[in-house]
């Protein structure tokens, strides 16, 4: 059974590209385009991993991260924050909110895949 990844990213082109890349590597991808939708889908679909942007409409990525990580039902789902915010205070905040990894854009797809496999333990 292929692993399910929830991709929360508002930039349609970015979302499409990452989705194709992940699917080509055998993952199932569910896309969400704003924070609220992402949170709802995370709760409904219980994905194996979440890739989360920070600057999202409706709900900030940090908030989504915290709401999931502070809820014991979803706390064990690994979260990779993938964002163009590169300042150390943002990275710090991401870690405080419980993100398992913080990657900055532009990213290397092989590094993203490596991180995903690492977090999924496969």
């Amino acid at each position, binding site marked *: 059974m292929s692993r399910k990844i929830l991709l929360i990213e508002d930039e349609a082109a970015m979302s499409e590209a990452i989705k194709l890349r992940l699917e080509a590597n055998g993952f199932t991808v569910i896309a969400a385009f704003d924070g609220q939708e992402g949170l709802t889908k995370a709760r409904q679909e219980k994905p194996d991993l979440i890739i989360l942007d920070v600057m999202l409409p409706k709900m900030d990525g940090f908030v989504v991260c915290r709401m999931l990580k502070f809820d014991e039902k979803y706390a064990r789902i690994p979260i990779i924050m993938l964002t163009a915010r590169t300042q150390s205070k943002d990275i710090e905040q991401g870690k405080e909110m419980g993100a398992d990894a913080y990657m900055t*854009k532009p990213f290397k797809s092989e590094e993203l895949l490596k991180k995903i496999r690492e977090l999924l333990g496969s």
Partner: protein
Amino acid sequence: MNLLEEQKLIFHDIRHKIGWSVNIRYVIALLGLGLFSFAMFYGLTVISATLFLIAGLAGYNFLIHLIYLFSQRFKLWQLVFLRSAAETIDVLAITIFIYITGGLDSPYWFLYLVLLVISGFGVYSLASLSVFIIAIFSALFYLGLLTLTYYRILPSYGLVVNLTPQQLLELILNRAVFVTVAFFLFSTTIFYFSKLVNQHRKELMKKNEELLGALEKVKETDRLKDEFVATASHELRTPLSVVRENISLIEDGVVSLDGPKGKDFLTVARGNIDRLASIIDNLLDISKIESRSLVLKRQTTDLTQIAAKAIELLKHKAEEKQIKLEANFSRQPLANWVDADQILRLFINLIDNAIKYSDPGGEVIVGLEISGGNIIGSVKDKGIGIAESDRLKIFDRFIRVENEKTNAVRGTGLGLSICRGIVELHGGRIWVESAVSQGAKFIFSLPRVEG
């Protein structure tokens, strides 16, 4: 400086002064004692009469010293009270010294001077006035002592003993006048100097505060600059990552270049490169505008021509989206002294926005009119509108209203901030009238300047 800090400063100032006066009193008491021993040695009885006063002063000073040592525990008003009491006692004691040792000839005038100096030089006490309070106080007390002498209640120190009442009165009056004048003369001198010093000190403090304010401003500017760099970096990274990922998908063969998707991915990549280029252009402009290094090339320009040119340039884009783009102004020339390129840019930005945020079938109306001393330009659409809470901040750089309707529209969040910059450089202002889903009307006013 807030009230609490000021109170603390006052507290420490007073405490510091008490400490200083304690030390000075010890020195004076020691000097007095030395003087007395010297007098005893030579059998001079007039000076020896002050022995008890000196001893009393030392004892009383010891008391003040104790107060100083424990003053950390007092409240401010208690400290102020104690200090006032100590000063009053000082004034009384010195006046008595001066009285006993014969008025104007008294060596104790220097004590009086010391007292004035102690009380006169301070930032927080009513320094300049306190010396006069002391003068009034000593004068009244001295006159009181003289009155008691006149009625023979006090012995007449330093006065010749066998005098007729008439002669005694004359002498007393003489003394009263001279001594009172001396009190006020000294006070005025100290008042003058303390005022000079205090004024200087106040100026220094004011300068200090100004410097601190300037430092805060620099820090704030620095913070804004950091924020700008961070946001700019974010804005550049986003399209860059799309370009990178799209190319690498084709490179890795995930997306085939021959299939229909391959071309889409290239188109998206190119679109994002265009976006990057436009962000960079805008960034350069905005930094020029904000650092005020953009120099307007003003010339007498017909604004109706500029508006018409902007409409002409965007006509095609409007037609593509089936939007009616209309000019709602007379063709009568409207000359103003402006930078034609920048005003064209202003119109293009506003009209382009209006088209972007309008649904197909909508309309955009460009207006231009004279109102008093101003020229009012406007761009009105029937698009998605702007909520009241967003109406001010949309003019800030990188601010884009985010909702499902605006997400479909590409933008850098710099256009309106450039518009505001252009209008403000021309000495005008820009604002928006709107309600959600009622369309928006961007209005700017430029002062009429004849070239």
